[in-house]
């Protein structure tokens, strides 16, 4: 019914707020006595205050993702917002509370190993998390509070830090829709959601409160979840040009996980579930999989803006706890006892840090010039353990990792954005990252040939990385720029792989790209080619349930992306990305792009379309603003081990909402076509049937992607600033 109304919508509603504008306190719009007298667009008042536009892009793939405009395309998490960027594919093998793995530009960036995540300048990648070095869980971010996402695909900006191998992501928070929203939702598979958003109408978008409560049974056995998140921000202007921004976050979750299952067991109907195809496809072996997580953090930023200088200082701290239990191999590794291969990974860390930057602007020969210096100081103090669990009862029976870690990352950079000529710009700089590792290994043997010894051992190491980055842009015509970039990025070393006194090695990426970028208002188009080479790449090892080093790798590819905004009714963006990734043989050079075997699982072709249509709908004489959004995704066949290739996957998501006075009804449907596909593929040996002779030849496994799921919401909007969704 609602969809029908949305599809029948015929009248334009106001466009979304421009991201480079700021909504100022405005009196709630008075409904016109006669809507027809005001034209097709319901009136409202939005005061747009001049705000400094974001800095010029440092690369052709320096993207400002318009999360606000495309918020109606169903995306259930802040991580899902990354699919607004060309070529990004997400996959999750561990359940609702587990961070998604990100595939980008030929990288299997894991859950953060190759992608730097930041929230308001605060680094989110978790150092030496036993599940994956750099694991970044953005599930604590309430997606409705994400105002914008800046994504740089590649290490081209000197401000990009540790883990910026494939690129970096920075979330900016803000509540664009002022007032208060109380929203409840019910959906498929027992999903229930409650969302509270509040932002005083007379305060800037950085002042807000958001609370999100979610629970559900999940789309199959062992997929139940529950989570709660709260975020609060205060943006206070101390004086003209000087503002203080405080941000607090609190989050906890508990979730079950169906884990990964063997494809041949599904095909043969051997899974321990009902015999139907769907029952088998969504089945699970080990009910002990899942986890809990919590994150509580605080950040304070002081910003000063003037004509000639910008100064930013941020202090942040957070407490993080994570426990994951997963069983990839069943009963294969604990031979001959066969107690079970499940691994429990725990991580607890306290993080504190400082970040700051100073930008100086000058005009030289009538050309604007900028110099920037910045720094990061981050300290992580925590513990990590990995234990093996019995299949029956889940009791731990062996400890394979038990360490406390203290890691300090001090970084500084200097950069310049120079306008050499009216049409030619050069930007770049040098970043230096230093790391100091202090580890207490508590899992050493208590007996050696020399006699008894203590089970603990202290280890220390340090490392220093130099990361030059440079870009050049040339304005071919008004709105048309050619940009070429080159940069070096690093991923620090997992402390679990360090030796005492070692000069810690880094994984280093050399990346280059060039492209044409066209911008005209909110319309834009880009065509980009890229090349990268990583000297110490990592891939997921199912036996260890974590990423391990595999040697050098190289990637190359291209993308085409565009966005069309028809003011008043349509926003459309689409992209097509091609990427190839190869495991480089020994001696291969930077430009030996296709040397070596392809890296499996990395999508070669990805196409994505997001579209949002705004209309007003006549219902019983009332004109109701409504929006309809569609997201379509196509992932070409992924290379699989042994020369195989997966089937292409096409998915569509549909969302919409309609408002009547203070009430708003919404509906979102994900995987509208109800496609059955693999969220992630794996290839390894496993044994889940203890009665059968164990097969040790690697076999295809997969994590099932969600089927079609719907969520209906009803919101009560207090003090609405606008008439339209």
């Amino acid at each position, binding site marked *: 019914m609602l969809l029908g109304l949305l599809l029948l919508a015929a009248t334009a509603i106001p466009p979304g707020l421009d991201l480079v504008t700021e909504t100022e306190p405005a009196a709630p719009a008075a409904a016109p006595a006669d809507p027809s007298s005001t034209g097709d667009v319901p009136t409202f008042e939005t005061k747009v205050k001049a705000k400094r536009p974001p800095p010029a892009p440092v690369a052709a793939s320096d993207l400002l993702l318009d999360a606000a405009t495309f918020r109606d395309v169903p995306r259930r998490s802040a991580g899902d917002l990354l699919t607004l960027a060309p070529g990004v594919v997400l996959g999750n093998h561990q359940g609702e509370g587990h961070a998604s793995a990100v595939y980008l530009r030929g990288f299997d960036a894991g859950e953060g190993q190759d992608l730097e995540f930041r929230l308001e300048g605060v680094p989110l990648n978790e150092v030496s998390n036993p599940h994956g070095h750099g694991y970044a869980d953005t599930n604590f971010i309430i997606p409705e509070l994400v105002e914008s996402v800046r994504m740089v695909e590649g290490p081209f900006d000197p401000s990009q830090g540790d883990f910026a191998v494939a690129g970096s992501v920075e979330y900016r928070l803000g509540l664009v829709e002022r007032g208060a929203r109380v929203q409840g939702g019910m959906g498929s598979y027992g999903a229930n959601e409650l969302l509270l958003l509040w932002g005083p109408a007379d305060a800037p978008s950085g002042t807000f409160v958001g609370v999100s409560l979610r629970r559900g049974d999940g789309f199959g056995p062992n997929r139940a979840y529950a989570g709660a998140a709260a975020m609060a921000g205060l943006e206070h202007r101390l004086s003209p040009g000087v503002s203080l921004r405080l941000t607090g976050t609190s989050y906890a979750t508990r979730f079950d996980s169906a884990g990964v299952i063997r494809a041949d067991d599904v095909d043969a109907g051997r899974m321990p579930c009902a015999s139907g195809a769907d029952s088998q496809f969504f089945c699970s072996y080990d009910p002990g999989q899942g986890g809990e997580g919590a994150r509580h953090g605080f950040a304070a930023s002081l910003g000063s803006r003037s004509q000639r200088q910008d100064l930013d200082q941020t202090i942040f701290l957070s407490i993080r706890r994570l426990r994951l239990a997963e069983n990839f191999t069943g009963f294969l590794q604990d031979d*001959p006892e066969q107690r079970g291969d499940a691994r429990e990974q725990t991580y607890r860390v306290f993080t504190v840090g400082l970040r700051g930057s100073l930008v100086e602007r000058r005009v030289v020969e009538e050309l604007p010039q900028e110099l920037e210096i910045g720094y990061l100081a981050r300290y992580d103090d925590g513990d990590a353990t990995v234990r093996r669990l019995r299949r029956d009862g889940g009791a731990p029976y062996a400890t394979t990792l038990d360490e406390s870690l203290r890691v300090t990352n001090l970084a500084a950079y200097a950069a310049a954005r120079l306008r050499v000529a009216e049409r030619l710009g050069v930007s770049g700089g040098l970043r230096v990252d230093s790391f100091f590792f202090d580890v207490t290994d508590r899992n050493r043997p208590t007996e050696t*040939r020399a006699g008894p010894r203590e089970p603990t051992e202290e280890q220390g190491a340090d490392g220093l990385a130099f990361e030059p980055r440079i870009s050049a842009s040339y304005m071919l015509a008004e709105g048309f720029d050619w940009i070429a970039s080159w940069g070096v990025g690093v991923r620090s070393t997992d402390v679990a792989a360090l030796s005492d006194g070692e000069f810690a090695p880094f994984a280093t990426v050399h990346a280059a790209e060039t492209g044409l970028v066209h911008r005209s208002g909110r319309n834009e188009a880009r065509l980009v080619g890229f090349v990268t080479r990583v000297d110490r790449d990592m891939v997921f090892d199912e036996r260890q349930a974590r990423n391990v080093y595999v040697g050098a790798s190289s990637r190359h590819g291209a993308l085409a992306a565009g966005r069309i905004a028809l003011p008043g009714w349509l926003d459309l963006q689409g992209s097509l990305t*091609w990427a*190839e990734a190869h*495991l480089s043989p020994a001696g291969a050079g930077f430009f030996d792009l296709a040397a070596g*075997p*392809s*890296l*499996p699982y990395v999508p*070669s*072709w990805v196409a994505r379309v997001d579209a949002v249509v705004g209309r007003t709908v006549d219902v019983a004489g009332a004109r109701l603003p409504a929006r309809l959004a569609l997201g379509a995704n196509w992932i*070409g*066949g*992924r*290379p*699989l*081990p*042994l*020369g*195989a*290739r997966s089937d*292409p996957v096409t998915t569509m998501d549909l969302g919409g909402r309609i408002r009547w006075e203070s009430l708003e009804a919404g509906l979102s449907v994900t995987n509208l076509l109800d496609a059955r596909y693999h969220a992630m593929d794996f290839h390894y*040996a496993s044994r889940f049937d203890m009665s*059968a*002779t*164990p*097969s*040790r*030849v*690697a076999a295809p496994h997969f994590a099932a992607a969600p089927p079609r799921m719907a969520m209906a919401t009803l919101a009560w909007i207090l003090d609405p600033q606008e008439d339209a969704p």
Partner: protein
Amino acid sequence: MRSLACAVALALTACGGAADTAGREVGFRLAAESMPSGDRPPGSFVTRTGWTVTLEEAAVAIGPVYLLSEPPPSARRHRAWEWLVQRAWAHSGFDDFDGGEVRGEYLGRFVIDAVRAGPQPISMSRGVAGRVRSVTLELQPPASASPSLHGHQAWVRGVAVRGEETIPFEGGLDLPEAGTVRKVVGIATDVDLDDGVMVVIELHPERWLSEADFSALPKPSGGDERRTMEPGTQPWDAWYLGARAYGTFTFRGER
């Protein structure tokens, strides 16, 4: 135009063709063969204790079998200096032998007739192309009763002659399901696994009884002259060890 054609070709390759990822699936045959000792027929050999043995019946159940990519530590000393300065192992070197990637496997059970000449086909199997540097096999009981085994995991019946002493004997061997007793881990080999290759398990039955002293078998109390190899007798104990000795099984590949 040529660039466009290349792009289209690349697209077609990436969308629908095979991927050039590492590894290739292959089909190979698995067979077993009882190897002759010198110019004698299979099952006829001379032991280190001086007995000339002629087996009339001999069989053993084998399986599963795993073909592995990594050599055992004993096969790694291929450099001169490693012979001179050997690596110190904190354990036997085999306890934790993993073998690396499993390139092929046979998960069933089969019975080798140890007195039959020539390869005995076992199965067609799928595997991953590449060098097989070691094999791990297990001596598990057969899935179903086999007449040639007389209810045991292995069976022998024959005659041992030393000088003027002739001892007919027979007996069955059963290995307990404890620890790694039923496993033969890390048998060194070097076979290129590829489509059409036949991997042959070579059984050397002379290794079973090479340390057996048949005179230690107790004489039967009845009128039957055939002596029985039973647990606790020296020949049986020698067989218990010899059945899993590293020289008992070797492997070869042939097309």
